[in-house]
């Protein structure tokens, strides 16, 4: 299998096939990150596409000292941040309209996304401040090391560590407390 670097060299030499392979290889992980951040299927698709367009535009500036995945995630993180700035000025009315015109694909997604446990975790992640959420997503869902995350979000390793611990502390309170409640109610039901 060709490495990312080999594919990039081929893309820069004009290979469409190499671009397809590179996009197929990384699309899922970028989309899942963006979706967990944005929580809207259409916006997540747009932001993912935007991430890949920015990747293509900046491919010649990519330097081999950095892992490609980290480089790509840095673009994704910045695209999400840009999107949040955009979304914050959108009115509730617009969101409602979008919901009305949502297509079949997003309905399937909505159905998938409605499991109570999943909703609870989503809410718990949602309760985190944006910067802490970023770190949690990159650490737990994309298996990135603290040093890599620091490079992606443009902060020091100590900052990443601190954000992660603060986030975990909050998640512990929210997630484990509910777990405790559930097991208590189960016990009561049994007795």
């Amino acid at each position, binding site marked *: *299998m060709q*490495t*990312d*670097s080999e594919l990039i060299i081929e*893309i*820069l*030499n*004009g*290979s*469409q096939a190499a*671009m*397809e392979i590179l*996009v*197929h*290889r990384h*699309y*899922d992980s970028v*989309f*899942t990150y963006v*979706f*967990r951040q944005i929580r809207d299927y259409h916006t997540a*698709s747009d932001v*993912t*596409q935007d991430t*890949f*367009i920015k990747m*293509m*535009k900046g491919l010649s500036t990519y*330097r*081999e*000292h*950095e*892992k*490609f*995945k980290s480089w790509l995630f840095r673009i994704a993180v910045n695209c999400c941040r840009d999107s949040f700035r955009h979304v914050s000025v959108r009115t509730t009315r617009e969101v409602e309209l979008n919901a009305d015109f949502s297509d079949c*694909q997003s309905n399937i*997604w909505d159905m*998938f996304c409605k*499991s109570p*446990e*999943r909703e609870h*975790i*989503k809410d718990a*992640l949602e309760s985190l401040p944006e910067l802490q959420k970023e770190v*949690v997503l990159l650490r*737990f*869902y994309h298996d990135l090391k603290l040093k890599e995350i620091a490079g992606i979000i443009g902060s020091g390793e100590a900052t990443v560590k601190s954000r992660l*611990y603060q986030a*975990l*502390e909050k*998640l*512990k309170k929210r*997630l*484990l407390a509910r*777990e405790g409640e559930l097991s208590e109610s189960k016990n009561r039901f049994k007795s």
Partner: protein
Amino acid sequence: MKVKTDSNHKRIITDSEMAQIENLLTHYNIPAVSHQQIERTVESLRQYVPEKQSLWNRHAEKLADVLSTARRDAPFLSWGYWLACIIFFAIGYLIIVSMNSNLYAIMLLMAPIPFILGLPELFKGRDAGMAEMEMSCKLSFSEVILARVVIIGAYSILLNTLLSVFIFYAQPGVYIGHLTLFWLTPFTSISAIALSIAQKVKSGYAVAFLLATWTVAVLVMQIVGVTIVVQTVSTLVYLLITFFSTIVLIYEIRKMTDKYLLTRERWSYGELSS
């Protein structure tokens, strides 16, 4: 994962809590995206793929890049290096002309010296522990290394050619072709060995070792009369040694530049997924 503690060393999250959180987070999974969705993105990206270039154009462009980098990097090489090489060659020329000593032995000795002396310039970033930083610069570190090899190689060839021309005019009865072969063969072979050694040890040690070994080797060859025998060796043998040494030299240069590309290879998808 170990137990996390805050600044007052109070226990915050235990291993089991950590495992529980990690386990719970896995429930927030996302289904795989559809093939059509990826294809839509692929189609929108096609316009950003550069025009396909012919192999010849690609190589020509790469060569132009390396030469341009070499032109930019040349002023940053230590003036001591430029000067030391000129002084060495001037002394060599004076010895040949004034002392009437064996010019072939002197040529043999002088030929690889500019390349050997250039090793610290080639590896100064690495030796100073700055390779990581240089790799993050606008130019790829491997491009810079390649450009420096070009500078040092070109300078070595220039000095050796000039010495051959001066000797040709100063010493009647000397064949320029023979002189050229006599510096080209040790230049290519010793440079290949030098590059191989310098990649393994600090360039300062490599220079000291190579200069001492090469000087002693030439002196011994001169004392036991090998340099006279060497002069009678067929041109074909010289050409074969030069050809083989050039291949080894190119291999060593490639290995060296690849070493700095390896950073990205280590982070390749294949290794990540394994």
